[in-house]
Structure formats: C-alpha cells, structure tokens
C-alpha cells in the first residue's frame, strides 16, 4: 500500500495511543494529498495512505483501515511494522526505510533505514548507535516526519513543533518509505498520512518554500547578456505573431523593435486566410485555397489531405462547410462560432505535466532554437504539436512519436534556464502582443475575412444544416472519402490513425443528435484548432520555417522539464508551475 514519495517529500505523523476517527472521507484525504504533493503523479508514484499489510513483521498487528499499529508479541522484541511505520518508548521509533529492509528491527538500525527513537530521543542512521537529536516521546505525543526534497533534508516534529533538521539523515530520500517500529506488548500507534490535518503547520512550511522557489526564479540572473536577452524576447514574440499570421501586429511589432520578419507579408496573409477558413469551419474553401496557393503541398502530403477531408466531412455534418452551406441556403454562419485565434497557452493542450505525452519530446535542435533563436532556418524536423483533448480523433500518436524521445534527458541547469527565459518572455511582452494581435485581427477589414458572426442561440441544430440536398452531398462526400482511404492504404500501407479518424467521423451519422452523442466532441469548434495548426505547420515547413513558434516550444519545454524534475525527485518543481507565469 505504501507508495514512493516524490514532489515535496512526504509527510506523516504518528499519534501514540491516540483516539483516531476512522471513516475519514476519502475525498478529504485526496484533496489534502493533492495540496501537499503538488508535483506527484500518483499514477506513477502512488502516495502512502496507510501501512502496508505485507511489509511488516508478524508481531505487528494492523487495524482501523491499516492506520493503527499494535504490538502483538508476548515478549519485548525489536519488531518493525513496516510499510512501514515503527517504534515507541518503552521502545518505539519512527523513521524512513527502503523497501526490503529487515522488518524485525527498529528503523534506523539497518542499512537504508533511518529513525528517531522515543526512549532516548536519538536519531539512528543505518547504525545501532544513535546520536542525540531531539526530546524523548511517549504516550499521547504526536510525532511527525517531513522529508524536503528541495534541499534534501528531513526533520521530525513533536506535538506540532519542528525539532530541526536531522543533519545525519541526508541521502536519497525518494526511495524511502515512512516506517514505525514497536516492541512493547500492548503498544498502539495511530498514523495520519493526511486523513486529518497535521498538527504541525505543514501548509505554512510549504508557503515559505514556495516563496523561496519563486524568488529564486524571479531573481534568476541573466548576467551580461541583457541586451541579447531583450532582443531574444522580441524575436520570440515576433516569431509567435508571424506564426499565427497576425500580419498587422507582427509588422508593427517588428518595426518598433527594429527586427526583420523572416517571411514575406504576402505569405503571412495567405496563411492567415487559410487559417481563418479552417477555424470558421469552411474546410472545402480552405483545401481549395491551399491547393491554389501552395500547389504541391497536399499532393506531397496525402495524410494531411486526408485529415483535412475528414474534417471537411465533419464540418458538413455540422452544416458549416461551404459546400453544404450553399445547398442549405443558410446564411454563412458557423454553428459554433469560433473566435478565430489560437488559444492562449492555458488551453488544455499545454498541460503537459500529465501522463499524456504532449510534446513530441524535444531534441537539441529545439533547445538551440529557443535559446539562440536560430530556429527559423535550422529546424527541418517534422515535429508536430499534439492535438488538444484526447488523442483519439487525430493521428496524434504517430505524429508525436516522430520526435526523438530518446533524446529527452536534459541537464537540470538547462531546465532552469529555459523556464526562466520563458517566464520573462511571456510576462514582459508576449501576452501584450498576443492580445494586440487578436483585437487588430478582428477589426481589420480584410477581404478574406471569414464570417465570424456569433450565433448564440444554438436552438435547432440539424444535420448538414437541415437541407436534404446537403445531406445527399455529405453522403456522396463520405463515399469519396471512403475510397480515398482505401486508395491511401494501397499506396502507403495501413495507417491505424487514419482508420480511426475516419471511423470516428462516420460514427457521427449513427446518432440522431450527433452533437449530444459520445462522438459529438468532434463537432466542437475547438477541434478545428489542431487541424489548423497542423496545416499551418506544414505550410511553414515548405518555406523552411519552424513548424512551431519558439515561444510555444519554450512553454512546452518548460512544462516537460518540470515533469521530468518531478519524476526524478527534484522537489522544487512542486512550486514552479508554468501556468503561474501565463496570464
């Protein structure tokens, strides 16, 4: 039952002979654990919630949901209940131990085992000889143990008071488990792994460390390179604006910061035009325009074309695609209006700290790209951003596997730097630039501007906008799509992602109200975003431009670094969240 601890360490307190109220709501426990271990992914490293019934000596009995430990032996012996919990005066000890240590001994006496003993108040560090550490403890005392993975220290608490760092216990904490040991017949110990509030004010302790870590980030020295620093941030902002085709803003920004734009204005405008079409659901027009402006692009990328077509099919069902719209005689309004701009970083797709592989890893090229800002010309990789939401609708998995996962490990100093760079970049200028971009964009009189009217009343949503002709057209289009899929398979071999994509899209027709069906999420306007982004990246790649803006890459990279830190037990990541720096 016991889990490995990571994040900010682990906490446990022991009440000797206390009355424990069991039946604590699981919910409260989970909430408290989430607060106390912000960076722990319990799927990978579950946190201890009770004593392990397996890792204990036979003289130790467990009760009260495995939270109460009692000594069953008749004669005093040194016995360890372990999952680990340990001993009392009259001989009791509390401490930490690795998996597999001798359960017949008090914590601290053996290798990879550390303990604080109640009879003499000494601390034991893998040795039978203790050193004076704190006061003795006995019946009625509440003893706590806290491991801090930021500075690799451990301290115990007695009745809510910190007894100070145990200087002898400095080692590899991540693989240790809380442990108690008892040896007096009739002795009882109740444990609290977070079922109740801790007597020691651990929240206050965490506040101090959060402040320290954040101050460290805020004060991260950028040294002599201040001039470079500013220009790098400006370049990042400019490239972001260009990438997302905020022509006017990009132009104004480049002008005022004295930079060159690495793409022709006309080209940016073209991409902008296509993006707007995709984001407003007018896929047919988008495909057509792409073929016009970038003649060979889709021919060379059959998978991409297929994806666009599937999306077009979905938009037809939605009634938004241009082909069905004309047939339906409806005004060209999108069913679900879409603001037409990429989402800020806080969109779900950037929550990379979860177990889902978000960024296709990152290799040294990417890193270079961010720090030295040479990526415009030097990133020929086929990395693609991962789609938001579940990866099931789009061929996300194979795209993300494209990246060089094996090159993942990055030294921690690099990580720090990236995090900090990014921080400044965003807070100082990019959010500004971003907002600017979208507002300008909205008011700009542009002939290619898609219709962005908002139809708030989503009253009657009908298949293909309700027109019979449109439905026929949609069915016909579906058949074409089916044969295209078969053709693709013959030419390029099986592609499970494509297959699934098509299957999901066709599933929409199985429901009378596709919007409220289990596959209805596909109709959500937000699903246009990854399509748009993939297409945009493909176009940029043909121009030898990065498929992803350095800014977004830096954000993803920072998030990924934090996830790696959490996995390797670098505690400070618990108090550094990328989201905190995105406003």
């Amino acid at each position, binding site marked *: 039952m016991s889990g490995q601890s990571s994040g900010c360490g682990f906490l446990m307190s022991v009440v000797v002979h206390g009355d424990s109220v069991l039946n604590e709501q699981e919910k409260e426990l989970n909430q408290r654990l989430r607060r106390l271990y912000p960076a722990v992914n319990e799927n990978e490293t579950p946190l201890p919630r009770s004593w392990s019934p397996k890792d204990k000596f036979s003289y130790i009995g467990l009760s009260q949901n495995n939270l109460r430990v009692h000594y069953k032996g008749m004669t005093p012996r040194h016995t360890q209940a372990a999952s680990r919990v340990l001993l009392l005066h009259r001989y009791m000890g509390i401490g930490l131990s690795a998996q597999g240590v001798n359960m017949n001994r008090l914590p601290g006496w053996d290798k990879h085992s550390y303990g604080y003993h109640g009879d003499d108040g000494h601390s034991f560090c893998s040795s039978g000889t203790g050193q004076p550490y*704190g006061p003795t403890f006995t019946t009625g005392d509440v003893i706590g143990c806290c491991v801090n993975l930021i500075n690799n220290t451990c301290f115990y608490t007695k009745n809510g*008071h*910190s007894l*100070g760092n145990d200087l002898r216990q400095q080692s590899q904490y991540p693989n240790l488990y809380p442990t108690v040991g008892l040896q007096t017949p009739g002795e009882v110990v109740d444990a609290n792994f977070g079922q109740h509030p801790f007597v020691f004010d651990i929240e206050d302790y965490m*506040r101090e460390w*959060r*402040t320290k870590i954040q101050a460290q980030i805020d004060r991260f020295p950028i040294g002599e390179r201040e001039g470079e620093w500013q220009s790098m941030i400006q370049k990042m902002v400019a490239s972001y604006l260009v990438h997302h085709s905020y022509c006017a803003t990009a132009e104004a920004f480049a002008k005022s910061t004295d930079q060159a734009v690495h793409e022709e204005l006309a080209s940016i405008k073209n991409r902008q035009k296509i993006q707007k079409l995709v984001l407003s659901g007018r896929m047919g027009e988008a495909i057509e325009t792409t073929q016009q402006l970038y003649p060979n692009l889709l021919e060379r990328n059959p998978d991409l074309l297929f994806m666009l077509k599937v999306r077009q099919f979905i938009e037809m069902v939605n009634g938004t695609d241009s082909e069905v719209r004309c047939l339906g005689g409806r005004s060209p309004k999108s069913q679900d209006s879409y603001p037409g701009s990429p989402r800020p970083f806080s969109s779900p797709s950037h929550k990379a700290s979860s177990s889902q592989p978000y960024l296709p890893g990152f290799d040294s090229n990417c890193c270079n790209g961010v720090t030295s800002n040479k990526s415009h010309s030097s990133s020929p990789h086929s990395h693609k951003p991962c789609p938001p939401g579940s990866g099931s609708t789009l061929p996300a998995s194979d795209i993300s596997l494209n990246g060089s996962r094996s090159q993942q490990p990055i030294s921690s100093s690099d990580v720090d730097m990236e995090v900090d760079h990014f921080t400044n970049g965003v807070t100082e200028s990019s959010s500004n630039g971003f907002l600017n971009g979208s507002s300008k964009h909205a008011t700009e009189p542009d002939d290619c501007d898609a219709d962005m009217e908002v139809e708030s009343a989503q009253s009657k949503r009908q298949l293909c906008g309700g027109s019979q002709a449109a439905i026929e057209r949609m069915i016909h289009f579906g058949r074409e799509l089916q044969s295209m899929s078969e053709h693709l398979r013959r030419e390029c071999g099986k592609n499970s992602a494509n297959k699934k994509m098509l299957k999901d899209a066709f599933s929409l027709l199985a429901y009378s109200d596709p919007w409220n069906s289990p596959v209805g999420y596909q109709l959500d306007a937000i699903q246009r975003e990854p399509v748009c982004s993939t297409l945009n990246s493909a176009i940029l790649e043909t121009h030898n431009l990065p498929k992803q803006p350095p800014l977004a890459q830096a954000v993803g990279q920072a998030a990924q670094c934090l996830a790696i830190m959490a996995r390797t037990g670098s505690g400070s990541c618990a108090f550094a969240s990328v989201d905190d720096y995105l406003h």
Partner: protein
Amino acid sequence: GICNGETVSVIIVLMQEVTATSRHYVDRLFDPDPQKVLQGVIDMKNAVIGNNKQKANLIVLGAVPRLLYLLQQSSSSLELRTECSVVLGSLAMGTENNIKSLVDCHIIPALLQGLLCPDLIFIEACLRCLRTVFISPVTPVQLLYTDSTVIPHLMSLLSRSQRTQEYITQIFSHCCKVFTPEHQTVLFNHGAIQNIAPLLISPSYKVRMQALKCFSVLAYENTQVSMTLVNVLVDGELLSQVFVRMMQRDQPIEMQLTAAKCLTYMCRAGAIRTDDSCVVLKTLPCLVRMCSKEHLLEERVEGAETLAYLMEPDVELQRIASTTDHLVAMLADYFKYPSSVSAITDIKRLDHDLKHAHELRQAAFKLYASLGSNDEDIRKKITETENMMDRIVSGLSESSIKVRLAAVRCLHSLSRSVQQLRTSFHDHAVWKPLMKLLQNAPDEVLVMASSTLCNLLLEFSPSKEPILESGVIELLCSLTQSDSPALRVNGIWALMNMAFQADQKVKGEIVRCLGTEQLFRLLSDPDTNVLMKTLGLLRNLLSTRPHIDQIMSSHGKQIMQAVTLILEAEHSIEVKEQTLCILANIADGNTAKELIMTNDDMLQKIKYYMGHSNVKLQLAATFCISNLIWNEEDGSQERQDKLREMGFVDILHKLTQASDPNLSDRAKTAMQQYLA
C-alpha cells in the same frame, strides 16, 4: 604631506563657487516676485537632493528660517508652501546636525500648524517632513505632545490618504518610547487602537507595516492597551488572528517579526494566555525561526531578545523552545562573529559583523538565561553547548556593558542548578570574573552579579571556600549599605548563606565587618526581604552552643532589644516566626538562655505566642520553652520551677492535645522534661 600649491588654490576656488551658488539659491528666496520665489524654491529642491554638502551650506546660509516663513505665510501660494516643506524634508534627510538645526529653528510647530490647512497635498508634504524629523534619534519626542490638540488632529488625518496613514503611524511608533507609558496612554486615550486597527488590512504594505509597528510599541508592557487589543475586530476578525496571518512564513521577515512582537507583548501583559495556540504554535516557532542563520544579524538579535522576553515567566514555553529547531545549538553560532572568513575576504562584511557582534552575544546570553531559568535539563543542555562556560566567563569581562549584564544574567540563571554549581561553575572558576565584576559595576550589573554570588556561596558549592578567601565579606557588607533594596537584599542574603554552618572565625568576621549598628539598622529596614534575610543571618550566626554564647555575651543586650522590637511591631507571620526561631536558638545556649530567663517581659511574649492562632508561631515558641527547660543542663530545675510558676506547664499540657501533630509532639517532649 606636502601639498601642491596649485591644487590647494583650485580647491579653494571650487569651495567658493559652491558657497556662491548656495548663496544664490538663498538670495532668490527673497525676490519680491512670488513667481520667482517659487522657481527659486523648486531649483533649490533639485539642487539639494542627495547632496549633503549643499544641504549643510544652505542651512548655514540661513535658508531654513526663510523657508519656514514662506511656508507659514497665508499669503504664499499653496504650491509655494508645499515646495517649501518638500525642501525642508529634503534637508532633514541629511545628517543629524541638519535635523538639530531644523529643530532649533522651530520647524516642528510650524509643520504641525501646517497640518490645519485643508489641502491634502500640502498636508502630506508636511507630514512627510515631520516623519523624517521625528524618526531621528536627536529629535526630542516630547515636542509631539506639547500641544494637546496635535494628537487628536493627527488621528483625524488618518482617514485622508494612504500617505497620511503611513507617515502618521510612523511618527507615532517613534514618539512612543520605552519607559514612557504616558505616551502610550495619550495615544490610547485618543483612540489610537480604533483608528489604527483598520490599517492592518490596508492594501499598501507600507501602511500595514507601520500600523503593525505602532501596535508593537503601544502594547509593550502595557496591560490596558494589550487587554483592549485582544478584543478588537478587524473586518470581523480578531486582531490576534490578523497578527497570526502576518506571521505566515511567506510574509516579509520584518512583518513576521513585528507581528510576533505584538503577540509577545500582549502575552506578557497578560492579555493572551501562555498556553494559547497562537503563542505556543505560532509566535514561539516564528521567533525561533528568526534566530536561524539564514536571517540578517539584526533580525536574529531581535528574534532572540523577543523570544527571551516571551518565555521568561513560563517553564512550558521554555521546554518547547529548548527542543525546537535545535535552538540551544543554533544560539552558539551567535558567538562566531566576526567570523574568520569575513575578516580576510570582505572589509564591508567585517565592519558589519563587528558592529553586530556585541548585540548578537548579549542577545544569545539573554535567551540562554531565559531558557534555563527553571528547568534543570535545559540548564544542563546549555552548559554542555560548545565552549559555553568559557563564553560566559569572557562575556563577564567584555567592554560592552550590555554584554556583561547579559552574561551575568545567564550565569545567574544557570547558578540555580545545584549540579552546575558543583561541576561546571567550579571547573571554570566563574567566581573569579564574577568577583572582579562586583568591584566596579553599575547597579544593574551588581544586582545580577551579587544574586549569582548568593548561589555560589551556598553550603554545597565548592566555590564557597575560594570566594571566602578572596575577601568577599567586606564587599557584601558594603552592598548592605546600598540605596537599592535589591542590592541590600543580595548583600545580606549572601552573608546569610555564608554564615550557614560556618566556623567561628567566619562568623566573627561577618559580625565584625558588618558591625552591630548596621545589623540593627537592617533589622528595621523598610524592605521585608531585607529584614527576613537579616533575621536569617542572625539565626545562622546563632547556631551551635559555643557560637551562641560567644555572640550573646558580646551583643546580647542589643539582640534581645531587637527581638523585642520586632515581636512588638506589626510584622508578617514569617518575620515573627523567624524571630521566635532566633529566640529558640538563644535559649539553646548555656549562658545565653539566662538572657531570656531574666527577662519576664520576653517570657510573657513567648507565652502569648504559644497561645497564638498560627501553628507555626506556636511551634516556634514551644521550641523556645523546650530549650529552656531541657533536663540535662545546669540549672534546669530552677528554670522549670520558674516557668511552672508562670503557668507554662498548663499551656504545654493543653498543647499536647493540639490537632497539629508536630505541635502536640513538641509539647509532649517538653512535658517529659518535667516528668523525668
């Protein structure tokens, strides 16, 4: 050195130029055109910022009275008046001499007068300047209180703006000094608490901080203020909870520390119990944290001093603190300044360390003293800290009086331990520096040192012998003549301890050195403690038969007189009991007992106390009679007969029935003398 003539002349020319420009600034203040005067003041403002030389020049050239004149003239434009107070504020930012000059020119009443103007900008400028003047140590704070309308007016200005709040609370906290509870009372009576409490939740950090500081000076040793504070609500929350929030570990250290001070003072003033969780679980741990190495030296000093004060009266807090965060070991670090590293690498750091070294040491001694004042285990832990006794010994002879005082306090606290007296105190010969300290020290130090000496003279202390040989008796006798009751008590107390089971020679020396006259003067001392210890001394002197007879033969008359006087006067039971015990000792002498037997008045008194309602007095008086009638001594038959005639047997008989077992036993033993 030899100076190049040309260089000298250049310097002179430069100086003349500076003075000339300064003069030009002053001259412009006298221009008949008010617009030009205004421009002159503005130019002056820009010229003095950050320029101490320029400030001094302008003051010497008489700019201040003119600026004050312009500031006070109602004919001056508001803009001009405001600029004047800004320039004056800037001048005040300079050296202490600048402040003195400004105060001498009566800047304070002028600015206080300015506060009556309705214009907020002008008020803020005046307050800012007043603030700068009042926070200087050279400004007499009394100037704030001379006009009784000032405080209420300042209270009313608190609502005007965040700036007025910041400046006014800052003025208050600097004008409310320790040892002047009347200042606290004035502010309290004018509603300081109600007016300032809401500022604790101001959006401005500066305002919150100054308001907090204000409360810390108001609450210090002030029960009235503290008792009021605990009941104050700020936005529905108790003030103590607001302070607790300010102690959260993510708050700035300055704020945590000041909030902890507020709660400490409220606790010491009796407004918060020492077992309240906001003291035990919040204030105490916060103050312990302040002592850690990661904080500034100033913060560590303040943290340690405040903690010492907080737990001084409470053994439970002392026990908790002694196990929190290795405090006892952490304090040892306070003695390591200036550190050897700083000496080589960084002159600035060395200077900083040197400046704070004394403060750190005295703070650590104070905290050790407080920690060890009750608990034997804690004392042991302290004396076992690295080089602790050596540090105390060298602290006793440091040049800084603060350190000496704190060191002797620490020694005093540890001297309450029998075990330490027997071991570490003797091993380190602490009596030597202590005796040296007693030769020439201010009263404050003398009180502590002599009190420690009392403990070192206890019978079981191995230091007693060497101290006796060092000629301490004379010193102690001189202490009994001090004006300070505390010193008189300590002097006579030490003599009392010294006389306990002492040999004839020592006793004789004490009597000779003290002189009977002084002894009897002490028996009529207005301080009961002095009287009690003097009686104790007499009792110790009058023990063992040969000593009793010897002393009574030379001083019998005076002693009997003194005993009579005390028994006849209004005194506490304890005093009378002690006196009757002396009488019982006298009754134990061979020749001395005749002094009682021949004194019918005294026998009547003894009879009276045997029938007293207080058992202790009855017991002591019975003891006395018992000694007088003791069989095996010469003339016991006559004494028994005389006392029987006087009716003592009847009384003894009655007392054998007493409910108190001690008393009835004693009476029975006495009755047996008659039966034998």
